[in-house]
């Protein structure tokens, strides 16, 4: 088994010296390898097919440059196309002209929403904002306590008027949090919501109701980087059910290739904004498309690899 696309392609082109032009047959066998590499990185099958078609178009008849061997040249093109889909430049949070800016977090169970609320809070505070976390998950056992502890660690206040564990109305809490923030002059409100399945209509409607109650400037879809082929269904369900402005990938500190990033970016056409890469509150970064592309391809740094030749 090959670990990286580079190895896979190298095996295709083994024995092939600079031929001048890539033939249709060369391109086809490299497409097979690219397809497998992407599927093993959990990129959605439909997205893989579209992607391959786009890359193929650029490759047929391509003149092999003197400086790069065919493997390097193909990797370079694949990498460029990946980055294009993942989004060239990171989009920043859109702050409201009239504070408070409202950010709502939504996603599947266990994706990392509550942890992210703390991370965002800490990060905003370091930029001299005065954020407020809102405990609108009143369902999962001890979600409210968890957010309170996270808020304490982040040095950020938490609005938690209801105890949770099935008690209280999350929509009311969300609505009240805005009044509270206005009165107490918080300038960013981060609403933590319960995890929910894309196919759970009742809970998706609840999320839409929470959204209507707070009218967020950013609704962020939080998704675990380990997610497989279901990423596309789920992302679509959240976009249709709640409406998504941006995506946050979590648990990037693991070794999942994270092909879901590509699938979601391609299918939603919404930017991936942040990367969550650890359990501690400081393990948080802006999203970097180039790093993600290298990761999906299973390579440290594609450009260095290409330059080494």
């Amino acid at each position, binding site marked *: 088994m090959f670990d990286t696309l580079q190895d896979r392609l190298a095996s295709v082109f083994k024995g092939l010296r600079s031929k001048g032009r890539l033939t249709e047959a060369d391109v086809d066998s490299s497409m097979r390898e690219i397809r*497998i590499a992407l*599927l*093993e*990185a*959990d990129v959605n*099958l439909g997205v893989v097919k579209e992607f391959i078609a786009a890359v193929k178009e650029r490759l047929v008849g391509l003149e092999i440059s003197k400086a790069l061997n065919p493997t390097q040249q193909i990797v370079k093109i694949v990498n460029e196309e990946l980055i294009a889909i993942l989004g060239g430049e990171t989009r920043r949070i859109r702050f409201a002209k009239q504070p408070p800016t409202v950010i709502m977090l939504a996603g*599947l*169970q*266990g*994706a*990392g929403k*509550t942890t992210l609320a703390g991370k965002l809070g800490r990060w905003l505070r370091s930029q001299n904002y005065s954020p407020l976390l809102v405990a609108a998950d009143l*369902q*999962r*056992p*001890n979600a409210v*306590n*968890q957010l*309170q*502890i*996270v808020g304490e*660690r982040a040095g950020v206040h938490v609005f938690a008027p209801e105890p949770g*564990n099935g008690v209280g109305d999350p929509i009311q809490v969300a609505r009240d949090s805005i009044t509270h923030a206005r009165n107490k002059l918080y300038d960013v409100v981060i609403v933590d919501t319960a995890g929910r*399945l*894309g*196919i759970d209509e009742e809970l998706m409607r609840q999320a839409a109701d929470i959204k209507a109650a707070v009218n967020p400037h950013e609704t962020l879809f939080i998704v*675990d980087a*380990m*997610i*497989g*082929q*279901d*990423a596309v*269904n*789920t992302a679509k*369900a959240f976009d249709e059910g709640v409406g998504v402005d941006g995506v946050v990938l979590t*648990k990037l*500190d*693991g*070794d*999942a*290739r994270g*092909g*879901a990033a590509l699938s979601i970016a391609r299918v939603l056409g919404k930017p991936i904004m942040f990367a969550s890469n650890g*359990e501690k509150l400081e393990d948080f970064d802006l999203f970097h498309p180039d790093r993600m592309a290298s990761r999906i391809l299973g390579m440290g740094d594609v450009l260095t690899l290409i330059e080494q030749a």
Partner: protein
Amino acid sequence: ASSNNALARALADLLSVDQLDEDTWDDFEATLIASDLGVGPTTELTEALRRDFAVDGVSDPAQAKGILRDELVRLVDPTLDRTLNLEKDGDNPAVVLVVGVNGTGKTTTVGKLARVLVAEGKTVMLGAADTFRAAAAEQLATWGERVGVETVRSHEGADPASVAFDAVAKGAEAGVDVVIIDTAGRLHTKTGLMDELGKVKRVVEKKAKVSEVLLVLDATTGQNGMTQARIFGEVVDVTGVVLTKLDGSAKGGIVVQVQRELGVPVKLIGLGEGVDDLAPFDTHGFVAGILGE
């Protein structure tokens, strides 16, 4: 199939080695890939089927799907022993250690499993060996209250191995049948945390044998699930898999590779967030899920 001349079509069928059209094969492949079965198993399965169909002259897509289902059932293997080992170790309780990466559903599974065991007339105690995550012990204790069993816990930041040991010691003292230990989520790539997990098991075994080590895998997990299973298996010798969140749209196909390559059976499935949403793994139901039936 574009010809509307029946004779020509019959001739074409007769002459083609592979009597199902490419669309049917594409559908099969897409179904299997979409379930997270993985490229390797998918290719193997479809190639084997193509060969068989060519030989037997299968040309009816419905019949073909039936054969695919049978092959999947064989791959998932209905004959595996999927019962939990809850044999007591002398006077000591049976110990179940629940492990996995972050957020897969460990704590919830501990609660639901306790409920099942209590319903079977067993006495149960829980051990809150996640001393790291915010409000993890509270969450477990809430589950304990829900299902009416005691939770042994310590303060945040306490040594997880000693909490686990205490839980087993208290369980033995109280004469319970089973102690279930919840551990903190950890990525298999964090060697420090994996060493800590190994220590939890070793320390517990100074008191009583760990009879089941359950790895909790989230059905939404893609190909990374295989690596998770391999490394957790190396560190704590996993004896069974719990596949959670099967109530969603994800199929959990990665467990097929896990079972096949590591020989560890899926024993339980999670079907929701409620107390009764845990069920034994059923091969036929799982395969029907993959095929979208």
